[in-house]
């Protein structure tokens, strides 16, 4: 055997040579019938418990959905709901009540649900400025907010369609004539409050134009504490969506009657969108 021979012999066993000769040690699983059956059984073993757990969890939830967009328009205005909602002179308060079907354990989550509302439309989604929301008074970087970036030559804070169309129905809950306190804190993502909406950014020049969109903001509260806005600014994925309104941190008993006083301010009538109030909680004790 010559030196080169020995060299190649040695090479043949080195890892690199195994690689170049495409003979790396490999596992070659073959889908034999046993394997296939085993795999399917295994998948079953995983999914059946997962499904059972999920099913149980799903049964342990009670959810009350009350549609109020039509009910809250007084009978005479029902023919032209749009002019009703746009007329500021008409009081918008309205009330509805529901009976608790099952015991509801605190925290009880309160959502508002809008249907047929395209919060995911590209024109709408793009119309915001994360930079402004965090750093505030800066005339640059708000071009993305079109068409709601300036008013009277001054930038709007927060700018953009999303903020401009802020949802502004409000709900108060009364049980047995006593108000159920709704906790409106911590409804937004913590990171949003902490890092996306500035602590020193205050609403400015907001809803000052000729066209008023949705809700107004208290100019004395910084954006990072305007949780309604922060929740609203997380645009929904689908045209039908729920957003968290707040939590009631008291349990509700079966057959409790809850009266909801609400301000029906938000216009979904022009595009036929529905508005619903959703109250949900766990029902197990």
């Amino acid at each position, binding site marked *: 055997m010559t030196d080169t021979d020995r060299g190649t012999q040695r090479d*043949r066993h080195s890892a690199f040579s195994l690689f170049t*000769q495409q003979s790396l040690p490999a596992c070659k699983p073959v889908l*034999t019938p046993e394997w296939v059956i085993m795999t399917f059984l295994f998948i079953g073993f995983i999914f059946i418990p997962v499904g059972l757990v999920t099913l149980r969890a799903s049964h342990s939830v009670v959810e009350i959905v009350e549609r109020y967009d039509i009910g809250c328009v007084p009978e005479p205005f029902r023919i032209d709901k749009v002019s009703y909602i746009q007329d500021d002179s008409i009081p918008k308060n309205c009330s509805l009540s529901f009976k608790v079907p099952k015991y509801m354990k605190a925290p009880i*989550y309160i959502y508002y649900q809008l249907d047929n509302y395209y919060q995911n439309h590209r024109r709408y989604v793009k119309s915001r400025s994360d930079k402004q929301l965090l750093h505030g008074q800066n005339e640059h970087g708000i071009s993305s907010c*079109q068409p709601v970036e300036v008013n009277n030559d001054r930038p709007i804070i927060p700018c953009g369609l999303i903020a401009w169309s802020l949802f502004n129905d409000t709900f108060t809950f009364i049980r047995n004539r006593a108000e159920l306190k709704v906790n409106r804190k911590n409804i937004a993502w913590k*990171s949003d409050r902490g890092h996306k909406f500035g602590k020193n950014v205050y609403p400015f020049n907001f809803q000052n134009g000729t066209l008023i*969109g*949705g809700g107004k903001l208290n100019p004395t509260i910084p954006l990072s504490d305007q949780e309604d806005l922060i929740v609203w600014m997380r645009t929904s*994925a689908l*045209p039908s969506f729920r957003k968290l309104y707040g939590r009631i941190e008291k349990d509700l008993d079966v057959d409790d009657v809850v009266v909801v006083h609400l301000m029906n301010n938000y216009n979904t009538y022009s595009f036929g969108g529905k508005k619903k109030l959703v109250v949900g909680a766990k029902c197990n004790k």
Partner: protein
Amino acid sequence: MARGRIRAKLRKSHLYSFCLFRSSGSGGQSIGGPGFSRTVYCNEPQVLNQKPYRSNIISTTKYNFFSFLPKALYEQFHRVANLYFLGCAIASLTPLSPFSPVSMIAPLAFVVGLSMAKEGLEDWRRFMQDREVNSRKVHVHNEEGGFGKKTWEDVRVGDVVKVEKDQFFPADLLLLSSNYEDGICYVETMNLDGETNLKAKKALEATLGLDEDDNFNNFKGIIKCEDPNPSLYTFVGNLEYEGKVYAIDPTQILLRDSKLRNTEFVYGVVIFTGHDSKVMQNSTRSPSKRSRVEKKMDYIIYVLFSVLLVISLISSFGFAVEIKYSMPVWWFMRPQDADEYYSPKKPVISGLSHMVTALMLYGYLIPISLYVSIEVVKVLQATFINQDIQMYDEDTGIPAQARTSNLNEELGQVDTILSDKTGTLTCNQMDFLKCSIAGIPYGVSPSEVELAAAQQMANDQEDQGELKTLVASKKEKAHKSPIKGFNFEDNRLMNGNWLKEPTAARIMLFCQILAVCHTAIPELNEETGNYTYEAESPDEGSFLVAARELGFEFFQRTQSSVFVREKYTASGKPIEREYKILNVLEFTSKRKRMTVIVRDEEGQILLLCKGADSIIFDRLSKDGKLYLEDTTRHLNDYGEAGLRTLALAYRKLEESEYTAWNNEFQKAKTSIGADRDAMLENGADMMERDLFLVGATAVEDKLQKGVPQCIDKLAQAGLKLWVLTGDKMETAINIGFACSLLRQGMKQICITESGSEDKQEVKEDILKQITNGLEMIKQENDPHAAFALIIDGKTLAYALEDDMKLKFLGLAVECASVICCRVSPKQKALVTRLVKQGTGKTTLAIGDGANDVGMIQEADIGVGISGVEGMQAVMASDFSVSQFRFLERLLVVHGHWCYKRIAQMICYFFYKNIAFGLTLFYFEAFTGFSGQSVYDDWYMLLFNVVLTSLPVMSLGVFEQDVSSEVCLEFPAVYQQGPRNLFFDWYRILGWMGNGLLCSLIIFFINIIILYDQAFRAEGQTADLAVLGTTMFTCIVWSLNCQIALTMSYFTWIQHVTIGGSIAAWYIFLLIYGALSPRISGDAYQILVEALAPAPIYWQTTLLATIACTLPYMAHIAYQRCFEPEDHHIIQEIKYYRKDVEDQHMWTRERSKARQKTKIGFTARVDAKIRQVRAKLNKKQ
């Protein structure tokens, strides 16, 4: 040394004056006219009125420094897909874009950049190769009067150059003189036409004096000649020298790329330089070839484009409708402030501009990285081919080389192999193996065919003692002395023992014929003291070696005599004998025999003749048939053993008889006229009769190592092999036998032309032969019957004409093997084209010489044999191997793998992009077709480049359905490629359907789960970012699990790439989420804060992944159980280790796999076994 010198000075040309039939060159009449305008001022290249001819620089590069960028860019954007992405990149700068410009431009730049870098690298290699050639040195006459070294690129037209032995000619030269007084020189034209025998060139008488360096100081002359043209065998021109005009014909022209041999030096004038030279004119740019798979891929891309267009149309129509009817009431969108794009007043414009957006948004249907991934994968595959140690030739140190990486997968789809013979199948070296003298067979060495048959038999029937000895003798064979051209073994003849044989006189005569009847020139090897022979054909060489080894050493040739030294004589002393050569009647393919008439020292005139047995047998005298019966039997045996046979005969002539004949013959020789050839032939015929048969020789045409086995495997793999050779029909048929393309019992259909003058008649005759052949095949009942088609070049010329070629092809396709002999390079290319276009299947051409270049370029895949001196074939080829036998591994292993890899890879690519791209489309329906993407721009950017690219590339580079050993054991698995089982529309559409299913499952599972539920523990619902990220997670998991199911071969690389891709997604999310929200937007902290703590996120991922992969898994499980393919079965056998435990089953499967094979070694061995068994049965 001095002796050698003297011998060299002998006017060798006289030898050739014996030649019977010389073609006369045609004179040039039209010099100076159109097409003949070239004027060369010899030895004064600086003459002012000399036209500026092209320099001797050759360049085969595609680009130069300046043209690279525009040209390479043009090439890149020539592809529809790239053009589309360019459009997208431009459009992404406008507000219409659904994504940020960088997410469109970056992948494109990456993809195009990578492809261009690859192009550049390849061109750089070509440039370096050219530079090597251009910087070779040659001696050129300079103004100072001496010869100085110059690089080839500086050689100008008109320069006088001096080329020394074994050098290549730097340009096309006019031969002025050589070291031989008569101006003869020998050139090897292997690079031009693949012929290995030397050709003599002869200078003009007028320039013979110019044979010293000093003679050129005052040399002036003007050459007027034809313009550059690609015809290698013609030249028209004349030389004005010393006031006289001499006609120049092709024998004075030395062509570039041919080599000076057996001649110390020559002087020549440069006529054509660089790209003007004949060889360069002949070279066509190698056409860019694309594989079938890739061509089909284009169609798939078109299909996807159509889908893209359709969904874009749906989308923009939907958008326009939404804009017109819904937008006015969407007060939250401020329709009154909307620009044109969203303005409800102009829904048509909105719709049209949305079309652009949609085309960009759904661009993910078209896999942008497909081309570049395929390119990268192919380069890596090619690297593996180059690295394969089993295709590395240890003798020459040359590895296999994939010269282009475009065609790797095409290697797996080859249907027909067209092979050159000389230098490809054979080493063009003959070994003297056996002989039959005076009816007694000598020589015990078995031939390759016998050996294999014996081995096979021994395996089958252990009790056959007789066969065992044969096998045993093979083992002895290993340590015999290696003499080139001599493999003869028989103690009865060796070492002078023949003297003791009863037929010693005949044996002596036999050896005399071998030693005298030839046209070779002996050369003394200074080191060993042995003589080697420069023979016209290797057969002749082997005869001389055999004669030498038997004690009859031919050692000198003069103008008129041949000298032979007899080593073993009755007296015990060596004697030298002189044979005066009176006439040489040369070998031609028509005559099939060669005769010399000599006068020996006793004055006896002998006619010594060797030739094809059939011809010789017809010419025997009554007494001469003494050994006819025995010899015939031996010849048949030899033929069966795959040996080339010649019969030897002689005749004693009376002085008077000879003189009478010679007078006639000389008269014929000097006559001028059309019937000269016929007269000469008649004359020869007169003499070559009444012969006495002495014996027969059997020569083994040394096949290249492993050729029969390789052909055998290729045949088992279902490949058809056509041999196209420039050789004579007999040689070709012999080779056919030697490499088992032909065997006894195979029905040969020989198609030859009738020799009639009338073209029409010839054509009809050939047509009839073809029809008869077809008829014969049709009527054949025996399913095992095999047919072989043998056709020669002249006939082929007719058969290739338009009206006949399809019929010819029809016949050829029916035959198990096809041999075309005497074909010109052009015909080789034509045949290749006919097969390629006529059958529509993939062809592979393999050859080693420049005469194969046309064929190599024409075929779908060209393979060059490297390692021999000519590089032309290799340069034109797509792959080069150093030996034919490596073709087996190249095709059966690498081809098979590469085909499946690429096919699966492309299918998966389409699958993954459809699965991903369609989710974008579904989401559109939920956003009022606004063009909002559900995913973050960065996810999309990474999707093709990072998150799904590596596993599919590892599939493309490393996947092995079965190991290389199994590929070689079951060549039948190769048929999956030619039958295109892995890239037919059924499979492609299946994958696309799988993609569609996957997209539906992922999208709707996510939508339904996430649309109104609380997502996080604190009660928040899922927003756009959460939905998009969850959906994307499902996609990353599903696609990567899917590819894991597709693979059947997992090394750590696959584990790392698949696992890594999934991990990369989470790592990316972490990093992206940790960046400032100004960059990450809604994805800020998304994994840490929202997704990871939510069980629903993980549940969704699990559910969607399993739901996506389950249908495919069910499909493959079903297929494996109920409709298994070949490789499934083999995998399973291997998996259960049945091949180890149950040898019998393994062998049975193997023999089953090769049932249909009709040619090749195995088929032949089977036939031989049948024959021997029949014999044994008879005995019992």
